[in-house]
Every structure is written in C-alpha cells, then in structure tokens.
C-alpha cells in the first residue's frame, strides 16, 4: 500500500522505519493503539509526507505524490479491526516481489531482500557473500535505482507473470538459505530465509513450490547440528549422528511436504524436499532414485544427474553408480563430481584412481571445510 502509493522504495522503507521508531517511543508511554497496524500505516504516511516535503529536487513529483497521498488518506476506509495486520503483510508481499524481480541480478536481489525484508546490516550481508561492504552497498543502491527507473512496479504480479516472478522470489530465498547453510554455518541467514518462506507460504498458501521450498529448507536445516563436527569438519549424510537432527523441524518439514503433494504439481523444491524426507526416514534408496527420476523430468541438469547416480550407487552398488556417473559428462569442472567418483572408486578398492579423483576435487574446491574433508580422505587412502 505504502510502496504502491509512494512509488519509491527508499521513501517507503524509511517512512516505515521512522514510524516504528515513533511507535516504540510512544506506545510504552501512551499505551497500545486500538489498531496498531493501521496506526503504523498512518504514521508512515505522515512521515513520508514530511520527508517528501523536505526534498527539493523533484518538485513536480512531490506535488503529484502529495496529491496522491491525500486522496488515499481520504478514500482509504478504516482498516477492518478483525484483520489488523493485513495492510502491512500485504505490503511485504509486494515488496518481496519487487526486490526479487527477475530483471535484477541474483546477487542484487539477495542483498536487497536481506536489507529491506530482513534485519541484517549491509556489512553482515557483504560478509556472507564474500564481498567488501562498499561493493555490497553499491550493488544494493544500484538495484534500488533500477527499480525506481526501469518500470518495476510495487505490485503483486499479474497471473501471466506470476510463475516466473514467484520462481525468482524462491530462487532468491534459497540463495539466502545457502549462504547460511555453509559450512561455515551462518544461522542468521538460514533463519531469515525460513522466516521469509514462512511468510510467503502464509500469504500464498496454494503455491506448491513455495510450500516445497519452505519444507526443503526446514528439512535441510534440521541436520545443521550433525553436518559439521566439533572441529568444524564436514560430516557426510551417511556418517551423521541422527540423534542430533532436529525432530520437530523434520516433522514440520514433513507436514509441508504432505501439503505440497496435496496441491498436486511436482516442482523442483517439493521433489527435493521429498528426498530430504526419505533421508530423515532412513534413506529408502529405491524411492530416492525414483524421486531423482522425477526431478530429472522437471530439471534435467548435470548436477541432478550426479545426485541420481549417487542414489543409484546406494541402491545397486558402486559399480552401477560409477557407470551412471561416467555417462553424465559436462561436470569435469565441478569438484563434487570428482569427490563423488572418488568415493565410489574407493569403495571398489580402485585406490589409485580414487586418490587421483580426490586430487581433482581438491584442485577445484574453494571451500575451506570441504578441502579439509577431501585432504583427510586422501590421507586415509595413503595409509
């Protein structure tokens, strides 16, 4: 509502922040207003008017905006007391679609989402994405400028545009999650991604892929404590201490997977979440291979093929897995391809080849924790 009226992200953001600050000052003193959400919107609108008045450069626009804001103020009916938070929640959905617009570069979407919808500072965002703070600040401000000047509207997309726009929102949330998934784990990012996905599911409960992504993140996050050992070293799924998995989170993830299947359409996130459910239940590899077949049907990428090959190795033995892996091609530059091959070669006692494959993986890998894991495997082979 506010962003739509103001048509300027910065102003809306600042105005809402200002209004919250005023509220924090006033509510403890004067008591909570009858309708806090409506109060915030009104206060934010007044703050925005103040700010607009203080700007000198865009005089023409200022007049138009003021006129627009006044009309909205007069026309807007009193918010329904039964649904006190709807204006702001609605605003956040609009904001989510805006800052995740597919015409923005993915890393800009991530930065902007974390800054506008999350409580993270630019410095924190920059650290997680391994860039200098000024570079991240510039990326964010460039994205804001693009939104302001390129015709991206603060609106929930039309039906025809919804699938692609929603995909872009989901990709952005998953990028945020993965930035925190590590290793090293940064739980403020995984928690933020899960929080935003929850909000999205709450607002668009019939979108199977939103439900699927939330389930996937909950299920992956449930293994957080078991994925890295006391020395910060990576532990493979097979070797994880399952008693460290968060049962409550798994149960919640499973409920969302079930809901996703009820909605009918199998998308990439829901299928991956379903695979995670299988792992949580104890890894029935026949079902997991079947799920990877479904994933391949909707997303035939080399990485999916690699995961499918790993599942085949578990179901039919390392030889069959290796055959499936060697049929992929395209993955010579991907360290996990070599690491997965090395693991199968090791299990087949082809130790020289295994060592070479681990070496290739090590040469391509830039994660400290994973490099440590690979070096450890090479050392074990040598002994």
């Amino acid at each position, binding site marked *: 509502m506010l962003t739509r009226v103001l048509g300027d992200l910065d102003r809306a953001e600042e105005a809402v922040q200002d209004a919250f600050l005023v509220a924090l000052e006033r509510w403890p003193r004067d008591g909570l207003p009858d309708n806090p959400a409506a109060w915030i919107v009104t206060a934010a609108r007044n703050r925005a008017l103040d700010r607009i008045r203080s700007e000198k450069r865009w005089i023409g*626009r200022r007049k138009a905006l003021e006129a627009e804001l006044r009309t909205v103020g007069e026309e807007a009916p009193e918010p329904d007391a039964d649904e006190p938070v709807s204006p702001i929640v609605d605003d956040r959905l609009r904001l989510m679609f805006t800052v995740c617009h*597919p*015409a923005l*570069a993915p890393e*800009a979407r991530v930065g902007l989402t974390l800054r506008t919808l999350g409580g993270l500072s630019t410095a924190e965002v920059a650290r997680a994405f391994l860039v200098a703070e000024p570079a991240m600040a510039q990326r964010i401000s460039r994205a804001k400028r693009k939104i302001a000047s*390129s015709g991206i509207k603060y609106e929930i997309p039309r039906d025809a*545009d919804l699938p692609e726009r929603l995909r872009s929102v989901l990709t952005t949330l998953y990028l945020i999650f993965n930035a925190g998934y590590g290793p090293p784990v940064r739980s403020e990012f995984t928690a933020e991604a899960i929080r935003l996905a929850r909000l999205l599911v709450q607002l668009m409960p019939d979108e199977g892929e939103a439900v699927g992504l939330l389930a996937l993140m909950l299920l992956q996050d449930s293994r957080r404590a078991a994925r890295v050992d006391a020395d910060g070293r990576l532990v493979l799924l097979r070797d994880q201490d399952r008693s460290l998995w968060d049962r409550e989170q798994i149960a919640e993830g499973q409920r969302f997977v079930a809901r996703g299947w009820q909605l009918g359409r199998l998308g990439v996130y829901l299928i991956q979440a379903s695979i995670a459910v299988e792992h949580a239940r104890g890894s029935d590899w026949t079902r997991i291979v079947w799920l990877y077949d479904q994933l391949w049907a909707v997303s035939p990428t080399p990485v999916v093929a690699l995961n499918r090959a790993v599942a085949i190795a578990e179901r039919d033995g390392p030889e069959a897995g290796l055959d499936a892996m060697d049929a992929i091609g395209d993955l010579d530059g991907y360290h996990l391809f070599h690491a997965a091959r090395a693991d199968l070669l090791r299990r087949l006692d082809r130790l020289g080849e295994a060592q070479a494959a681990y070496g290739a993986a090590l040469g391509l890998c830039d994660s400290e924790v994973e490099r440590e894991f690979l070096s450890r495997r090479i050392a074990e082979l040598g002994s």
Partner: protein
Amino acid sequence: MKFLAIIYNDESIYADATQEQIAASFEAHGAFAGAAGEAGVLLGGEGLEPTAAATTVRVRDGERMLTDGPYAETKEQLGGYYLLECKDLDEALTWAAQIPEAKFGAVEVRPVMDYDGYEG
C-alpha cells in the same frame, strides 16, 4: 528515406551534471529539435534512461532469460527497434521476448526517459 540517428555518450556526463548543465542540454536539444522540426525532417525522438535501468532479453530453447543490464557483447549489431507503450516492465519484457530476434540474438529493453520530474 527514413533514418535513425542513434546517440552515444558517456552516461556519467549526465549523471554528474549540475542542474545548470542539464538545463543547457535541454536547451541544446530543444534547438536541434526546433531546427529539424522546422526543416520537416524530425519524426520523433526520445531520451533513454541510463543503462542501469536496462534489461536484456533472450529466448533460448523456448525459455526466456533475463540479464540485468544493457546488451554488452560485440558479436551482434543493432538491427532495429520497436517503441512500446506498456503498463510496466513485466509487460514490456513479455512483448520483447516475442520479437523474433530474441530467439537467436538479444533484445535490450530500456525505459524512455520521463521528464515530468524535472523543472523547466
């Protein structure tokens, strides 16, 4: 014959310009458009938003791919243009993706400058 006169300039010149410099540029363009109009050769023209507002559209294997930013390669050459009136970027991108060249070349979508906010 009709001709398209395509303007190239360093964007930072306008980004860093003072109000006076922008006013001078308006005046210079006004003079050009006035003269060309009087001579009967001017059919139309627009300023474009800077490349920061650009989105490049390609369609490959039936799938639309968007890139943030202007068309920035050298293997294709400017081949034509359409001027579209759309409600928002989404609608413009939908149309851009239907331009035949999107399938084997690229279509850069850039908003036409809106001067309403400027004084004078």
